[in-house]
């Protein structure tokens, strides 16, 4: 039987760009977590700096959650026109909370529960509409029983650098909001009772950007060169912020071609380098990717997907660059593609990316998307203490040859200036010492040597994760950022004949993929793209075809109910 959890609250805040939605999201998720609630939030925004309409969905629950429901329990419009994009998600069960000025007439005829709070007016009393967000923070804190001192401390801490006057006014705003929040609901308007937990208070509150950034630091990253491009820039900003503390070289290159070539130069000289980009930028890096293949350089590339082709929907989400990262680059050379599905995986896989790139001297791609990066949730028990700065660099002797033939295909990697040897790398075909050759025997041996490294990568494949029973009749298969929503959909459906297989390493495919997928009677793939790219990959490598595909490519991530309904329709 299908049952949606009742102890769960979904709030959508809808604002113009520039109204401080991001700050509000940060503060709200924080205050709820510190009061013992599990939280999850996702922001979507238009590709503009002012105006338009952006939204943040904040979910509060008694369990760990990581998906956006379609359902909206409380909708908060923060400007005229803020409701327009949400007509199909606002129902008579949705409480519309906010300044009457922002509530569309069609909702005020009595059919919808309305809680009118003159937020804009209150804010103006304090000093201007910029205080609306903190008033709302206070209001929701009051509504959900957050301790007032906790709220005040958070606001004080957050605005500590804004000056005494601003801090005082923000605290006033928080208090005003809090007071109105305490007595807000009319009789009959009830909120779900959500149990709190002591343990959550000490959880981490992380988004995908934090996860990838911290994972890269833990992987021993010492060099990052990139060119800004949504939605990948957050990772660059994260690393730049931590550059001094971690002794990192951060450079904004003149273009992605330069960024990728810089990263290769850095690895050559002993750095542990990465680039962060999106599909279009990655297209410009492709020649360098092939260079990494030829000179057998490690390289870590974070590709944050957004909908294409071309500029597409710059700030939205999609999973349509899988084939782009899999097949780009002229010539034949091995690579590894990782696609985290959770915050924990974002951390561990980014760390792992540096380890594998260095160990096998191959490019490693971390494939995420806007939905993954802009989702925040509470994370318990993430062990961040394990770092992976084990370096595979060797000290060279006078007879050193960079491309020494070995059984594994991996030659010991020296760097210039460390040892008595010389390190010679060439993008032309080369012999063991790195000198140009057109000798066909050497050419054949070099191709085989490079491809041999794929065997090593295959041995260290990360197994796909199975959610649900082992003896499933039906199997949903997904990769990357769909993990959270599919897992939750499965628990809503509550069927014991349905399981979910999630791939966080998409290439090379784990050897068990064939048997795990093959034994399901009905095989369903779920992907945030239009042509089931992952299904094609599975078929190519295993011969197994999927029976059905759940696809979405409108720029939005899958919503919980949507996955539930589409699965139901197929089973």
């Amino acid at each position, binding site marked *: 039987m299908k049952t949606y959890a009742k102890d769960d609250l979904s709030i959508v805040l809808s604002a113009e760009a520039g109204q401080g939605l991001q700050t509000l999201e940060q503060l709200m998720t924080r205050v709820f977590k510190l009061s013992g609630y599990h939280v999850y939030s996702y922001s979507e925004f238009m590709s503009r700096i002012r105006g338009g309409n952006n939204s943040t969905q904040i979910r509060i629950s008694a369990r760990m959650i990581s998906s956006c429901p379609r359902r909206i329990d409380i909708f908060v419009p923060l400007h005229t026109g803020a409701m327009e994009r949400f007509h199909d998600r606002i129902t008579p069960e949705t409480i519309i909370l906010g300044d009457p000025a922002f509530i569309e007439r069609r909702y005020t005829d009595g059919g919808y529960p309305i809680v009118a709070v003159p937020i804009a007016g209150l804010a103006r009393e304090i000093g201007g509409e910029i205080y609306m967000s903190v008033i709302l923070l206070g209001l929701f804190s009051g509504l959900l029983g957050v301790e007032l001192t906790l709220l005040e401390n958070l606001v004080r801490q957050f605005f500590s650098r804004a000056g005494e006057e601003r801090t005082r006014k923000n605290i006033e705003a928080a208090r005003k909001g809090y007071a109105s929040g305490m007595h807000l609901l009319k009789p009959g308007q009830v909120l779900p009772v959500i149990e709190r937990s002591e343990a959550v208070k000490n959880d981490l509150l992380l988004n995908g950007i934090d996860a990838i950034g911290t994972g890269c*630091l833990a992987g021993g990253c010492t060099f990052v*060169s990139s060119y800004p491009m949504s939605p990948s820039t957050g990772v660059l900003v994260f690393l730049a912020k931590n550059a001094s503390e971690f002794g990192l*070289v951060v450079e904004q290159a*003149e273009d992605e071609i*330069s*960024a990728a070539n810089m990263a290769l130069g850095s690895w050559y000289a002993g750095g542990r380098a990465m680039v962060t980009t999106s599909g279009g930028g990655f297209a410009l890096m492709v020649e360098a990717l092939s260079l990494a293949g030829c000179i057998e350089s490690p390289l870590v590339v974070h590709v944050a997907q957004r909908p294409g082709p071309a500029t597409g929907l710059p700030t939205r989400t999609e999973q349509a660059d899988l084939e782009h990262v899999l097949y780009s680059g002229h010539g034949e050379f091995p690579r590894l593609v990782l696609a985290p599905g959770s915050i924990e995986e974002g951390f561990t896989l980014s760390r792992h990316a540096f380890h594998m790139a260095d160990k096998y001297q191959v490019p490693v791609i971390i494939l995420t998307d806007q939905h993954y990066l802009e989702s925040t949730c509470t994370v318990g028990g993430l062990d961040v203490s394990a*770092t992976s700065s084990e*370096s595979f660099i060797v000290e060279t002797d006078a007879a050193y040859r960079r491309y020494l033939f070995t059984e594994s295909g991996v030659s010991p990697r020296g760097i210039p200036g460390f040892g008595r040897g010389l390190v010679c*790398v060439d993008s032309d075909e080369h012999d063991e010492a790195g*000198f140009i050759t057109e000798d066909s025997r050497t050419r054949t041996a070099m191709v085989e040597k490079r491809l041999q490294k794929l065997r090593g990568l295959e041995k260290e494949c990360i197994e796909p994760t199975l959610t649900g029973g082992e003896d499933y009749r039906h199997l949903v298969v997904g990769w990357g950022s769909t993990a959270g929503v599919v897992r939750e959909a499965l628990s809503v459906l509550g069927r014991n004949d349905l399981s979910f297989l999630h791939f966080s390493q998409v290439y090379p495919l784990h050897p068990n993929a064939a048997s795990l997928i093959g034994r399901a009677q009905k095989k369903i793939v779920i992907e945030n793209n239009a042509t089931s790219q992952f299904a094609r990959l599975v078929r190519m490598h295993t011969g197994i075809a999927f029976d059905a595909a759940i696809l979405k490519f409108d720029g939005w991530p899958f919503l919980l109910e949507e996955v539930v309904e589409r699965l139901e329709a197929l089973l």
Partner: protein
Amino acid sequence: MAERFDPDHPIDIAWCPGCGNYHILAALKSALAELGKDPESLVIVSGIGQAAKTPQYVRTNFFNGLHGRSLPVATAIKATNPGLTVIAESGDGCMYGEGGNHLLHAVRRNPDITVLVHNNMVYGLTKGQASPTSMRGFTTPVQVSGVCVEPMNPLAMAIGLSASFVARAFAGDIEQTREIMKQAITHKGFALVDIFQPCVSFNRVNTYQWYKEHCFYLDGSHDPADRDAAFRVASRTDSYALGVLSIVSGIPTFEECLDAYRGDTRPLHERRVSSGKIEKLMDDKRG
């Protein structure tokens, strides 16, 4: 002395007999030897082309990367291990055409590297098409009616961007070329040396004789610190100035500006991340 940089394995040089590249190679090896450089702490980075094969013929570390992309690589090598001597060397097509944007930004960054451009005013390796420095009217199998665009002036461009060291040499004069290279390598900051290089196979206009007739050496009356004078000299096309045109001192190098080296001079390969720092970073995420 220059033998220190002679390859210790048999090499089969891919250049045409009589090519100016031989002289540039000879000048480079003796410049390096006279400066007391050792092959182990030197890296030559190149792109693709005939000139870009130069590091293959020098006993040292090299990174022979992609066409046009030597400068980002060289910049990153220097930023990763500032103790290395880094030279980027390639043809005019590679540096001024395919890699032109990188050159602009490398000048702005001012890494402490030396850039040697073998300027033969033609694409050698791809058999004789026009390059960004080909003169008007130069005919090729592609520019069949002759080049009809203005040749690029890399030196005026670099001086315009306040490049810290700008010079020109002529491959036909090994001695002077070696001296100019020595100054460029010793100079702290970005040093560009455009080297006129006769291509005997594909450029029948700009020959050894032509360069001799169209070049003059700057004498003591030219002050490289005088940027306006340098710009005027660089702009001349009736006769081309050889020597050090411009030196702008006092610009910090790229490496010096990096936060990574503030209070920690270790090259990046000596650094290890501490788990304590990661844990501290995460503690801030607990609220």
